[in-house]
């Protein structure tokens, strides 16, 4: 029977496959890396991050420089050239958060997850692979964009001689901190993606936690608010971006960021537990 079959119909490999074929964490990571770069949405969201950080940072700096002579002394006293140039992070966190969610929920909505888990049925390597690949790519992109936004902003502010330098106290930490904050926002999105599994649900949860919780916190009675609000995820995480931290604050820049990482870790661990336990 074999002889009568045309060659193209033979299903076995003409050359046998190598012997070392097996699933490893590194290989799953390579697969996730390839998955990331083989979707157009990845390029769009990274481009949007660039635009949000550099475009909006530059815009805020330009507007501020333009309005500076007309600003009231109180405003001028509170002026922070670093924060102005990095202001685009507020929009960028939405983009990065959505990207983190999408690399997970995009697989659930299309059914791809069944192929992914069929190829790596131990499952945990898929989550680890996605988280690591996402963190590396996002950190590189956001570090570069944060520095570009900072230097562009300072250049625009220098027309009024109100710029600062990267060597000034706390500035470098704030610039790098912006990138770190954004990366961890995305990782929280990855974790929530595995927990919620639907794009809309995961995005709503992520921004509920990041943007709505602090607003609700402000509505608390003052004696509660002072003890609770600093520990809310985005409040804690954004401490790292403050150039001149209040020494009396409950959480300093790095301890605040550590708390924020804790929240992201909870989301990822919960995602991992549910990924292992639930049917695909």
């Amino acid at each position: 029977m074999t002889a009568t079959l045309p060659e193209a119909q033979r299903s076995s490999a003409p050359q046998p496959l190598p012997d070392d074929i097996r699933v490893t964490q590194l290989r799953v990571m390579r697969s996730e890396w390839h998955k990331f770069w083989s979707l157009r949405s990845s390029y769009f969201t990274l481009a949007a991050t660039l635009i949000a950080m550099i475009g909006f940072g530059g815009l805020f700096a330009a507007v501020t420089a333009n309005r500076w002579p007309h600003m009231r002394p109180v405003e001028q006293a509170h002026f922070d050239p670093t924060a102005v140039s990095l202001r685009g992070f507020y929009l960028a966190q939405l983009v990065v958060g959505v990207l983190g969610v999408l690399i997970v929920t995009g697989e659930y909505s299309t059914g791809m997850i069944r192929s992914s888990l069929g190829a790596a049925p131990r499952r945990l390597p898929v989550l680890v692979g996605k988280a690591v690949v996402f963190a590396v790519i996002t950190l590189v992109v956001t570090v570069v964009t944060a520095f570009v936004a900072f230097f562009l902003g300072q250049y625009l502010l220098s027309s009024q001689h109100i710029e600062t330098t990267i060597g000034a106290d706390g500035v470098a930490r704030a610039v790098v901190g912006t990138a770190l904050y954004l990366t961890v926002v995305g990782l929280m999105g990855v974790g929530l993606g595995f927990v919620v599994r639907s794009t809309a649900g995961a995005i709503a949860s992520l921004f509920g936690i990041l943007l709505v919780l602090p607003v609700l916190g402000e509505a608390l009675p003052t004696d509660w608010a002072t003890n609770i609000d600093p520990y809310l995820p985005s409040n804690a995480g954004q401490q790292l971006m403050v150039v001149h931290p209040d020494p009396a604050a409950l959480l300093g820049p790095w301890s605040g960021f550590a708390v924020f990482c804790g929240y992201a870790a909870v989301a990822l661990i919960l995602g991992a537990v549910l990924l292992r336990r639930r049917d695909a």
Partner: protein
Amino acid sequence: MIEVVGVTKRYGDRVAVDDVTFTVRPGMVTGFVGPNGAGKSTTMRMILGLDAPTAGETRVNGKRYADHPAPLREVGALLEAKAVHTGRSAYNHLLALALTHGIPRRRVDEVIELVGLREVARKRVGGFSLGMGQRLGVAAALLGDPHTLVLDEPVNGLDPEGVRWIRQLLRSLVADGRTVFLSSHLMSEMELTADHLVIIGKGRLIADTSMAEFTNRFSRKVVRVRAQEAGTLRDLLVGPEVSVTALDGGLLEVHGLTSGEIGQIACRNAIPLDELTPVVASLEEAFMDLTQDAVEFAVHQDGLTERTAS
């Protein structure tokens, strides 16, 4: 070899698979048949470790699917629903799967060639027709050159050309000596391909039998006889093991006698015959009879639980 041992799957109150045990033996095509909703897909997902059984276990070549160091090397699977990101090209989809195992790129090119997707391999999967999607699924299943294939309703929704292609592929897989576990809700599909049958209905195992045995046991043999003196012939043929149904125009349907035996009886009694045709009722009918009971039983059961609940 695939072993399904005492597997039960419950979704809340609903039992999708109910204590099913069978073995898919190596080197042959085992057909997995049952009406829609019988639990075929659920069982296949449990074999591939995508769904966890509520009770019992499934093994592939002696181990749980997930415990194999290179699962794609053991079993290739084509599941019913498309399991592909629509934004990725066919080539990139297959390469992403290959990378998890360290399967070389040349194998990705090979399987693309094999399923005839070369021209569209760089196009995004979102624009693929059902047939092209099915070919991509087959390519993914063959990626690790596995000895065992699990195919869930591979011909469902395909045009005649696609159906023909799948059948040819199945023949070539068999020619390679592979183990194929193939599901369908159509018995006619199995008549052409399967050596062994596992039949389920409403989550329960109904039959686990060789194709030959199933054909022997369940296909009803009928002989159609047409004669002017149909009434006389009828009286001569009927007996304890023989039943005769008289139809219009002197036509008789005879159960329990071969056409040769009927011919001899007619000859001995000098009754001229206008027609003598052996008819083998299709396996599809036998299959319907078998699974009908399971369906009715289940409907009855549901009614019962509803009544006791209210």
